[in-house]
């Protein structure tokens, strides 16, 4: 009797296992399907508009004609400002959190709490803050600089958290070995720990780039939406995502160009992401084998 109960239990257990497996696979399949649906929709509507001149020409007729050259330049410039500010700041903060303060340190706790809140703040709030602080208080106006700095505030939590986790994942033996060899903490951080944490840093970087390039709401109030070719960082510049929004919502007949711009945005993300990964990989190879 006991045997039979045991067997039937095992059978029901197996059934649950199978059911869970099927459900999980279905969920994974659903996610893939959703992704392919979006991409194929973009291709179906936007691929016809894609051409070399689309990338090199200035927009005409509110974006219905011409290309997106000025938009691309603005996008890259905004991203450049964002990263050149957020990377050094983020790395320093991560070093502070992971290496220099104890985990239960009050100050570190405060910083971490702030980061968690920041990571959850809606981007429109960042936009309003950026407008009030960078555009008005600092007098930068609607400019690429204001937009980039606002985005830097947005991606900092992502960068810091992933770099911090990366540093924490570095085996403690390296710290012990370095200390036992009379190496100072700072040299240990820069020569051993940070290089070892680079893969995690790059993951954060790629996520941050993704968030920055896709941002629309925060940029409306900070870098503005002038579609002209910017001539300085203090010029207003329209980011790609904003261009897509404008074409699809405010410009009748702009849908095709919006789709094409979205394809370019997707490609830009892919290129930047794989470039970051590739460069860091090469650098790591060189660094680990020969500084």
């Amino acid at each position, binding site marked *: 009797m006991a045997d039979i109960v045991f067997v039937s239990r095992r059978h029901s257990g197996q059934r649950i296992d199978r059911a869970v497996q099927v459900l999980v696979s279905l969920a994974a399949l659903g996610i893939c399907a959703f992704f392919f649906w979006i991409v194929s929709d973009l291709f179906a509507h936007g691929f016809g508009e894609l051409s070399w001149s689309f990338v090199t020409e200035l927009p005409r007729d509110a974006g219905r004609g011409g290309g997106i050259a000025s938009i691309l330049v603005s996008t890259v410039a905004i991203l450049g400002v964002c990263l050149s500010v957020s990377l050094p700041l983020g790395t320093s903060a991560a070093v502070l959190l992971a290496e220099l303060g104890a985990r239960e340190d009050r100050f570190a706790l405060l910083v971490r709490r702030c980061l968690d809140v920041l990571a959850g703040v809606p981007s429109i709030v960042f936009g309003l803050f950026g407008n009030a602080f960078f555009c008005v208080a600092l007098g930068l106006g609607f400019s690429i600089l204001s937009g980039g700095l606002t985005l830097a505030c947005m991606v900092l939590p992502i960068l810091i958290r992933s770099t911090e986790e990366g540093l924490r994942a570095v085996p403690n033996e390296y710290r012990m070995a370095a200390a036992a060899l009379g190496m100072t903490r700072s040299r240990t951080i820069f020569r*051993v720990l940070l290089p070892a944490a680079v893969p995690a840093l790059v993951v954060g970087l790629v996520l941050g780039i993704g968030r920055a390039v896709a941002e629309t709401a925060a940029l409306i109030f900070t870098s503005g939406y002038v579609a002209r070719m910017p001539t300085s960082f203090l010029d207003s510049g329209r980011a790609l995502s904003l261009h897509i929004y404008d074409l699809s919502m405010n410009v009748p007949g702009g849908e095709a160009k919006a789709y094409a711009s979205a394809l370019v945005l997707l490609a830009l993300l892919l290129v930047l992401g794989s470039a970051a990964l590739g460069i860091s990989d090469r650098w790591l190879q060189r660094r680990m084998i020969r500084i």
Partner: protein
Amino acid sequence: MTSSPSHLRLPAVPLIQIESLSVRYGSKTALREVSLTIPHGSITAVIGPSGCGKSSLLGALNRLSDLVPGCTVSGTVRFGELDVHAADTNVQDLRRRVGMIFQKPNPFPLSIRKNIELPLRERARFSRAQLDERVERVLRDVGLWEELGDRLDDSALKLSGGQQQRLCIARALALEPEVLLMDEPCSALDPISSATVEDLIVRLSETCTIVVVTHNLAQARRISDELAFFWVRDDAGVLIESGSTHRVFRMPHAELTAAYLQGARG
């Protein structure tokens, strides 16, 4: 294996003098009131069961204990004229003079060459030629030059465990330490690598004073001149007996030592 006529050496001048040293982690006492003298030029083996504070002892000698959160050290450790735990002691300098080898080989994720050069470059400015010369010398010292001399730019992590441990020793030697602390340097290695490292320890004792923690009594007997036997009493490590290895194995003063050495305890 190794022959050790070392117990025939003359008693040497004390290099490290430990007086009523206690090490605590928070409220837990790891080591209580230890007094011990490490003679210059000797190999001192530290033996005893797990948790008797052997590693804590080593950590207190090069102040690696500073890195352990909540660790407090009391008592004095004199290294020559230097008061190791004084507030104004230059810790970096101390650790260059008192090298340390860990149980698990811990090379940096860098090339073989960089592993040795990185700590050297921080000590002083060396020319490329000086660095190359030093790298070759220490690798020869640990017998890795023949094996690895032509691939110094390979990753150190690709080496075998025994090679990694010898690289770690070479890395420590490059700083020309006066003392090498070794925390069970052979226990993570296979028997052949272990024998190689053991031979190496004996050879190194010609230029370095060595303190080696080991669980291997036969090894302690083979290589050491001095023996320090630790035990756990009231949840804290205490020193039961120390003296020349020859004497302690032949005529242990404490009953506990005799029992442990015969394998009856621990």
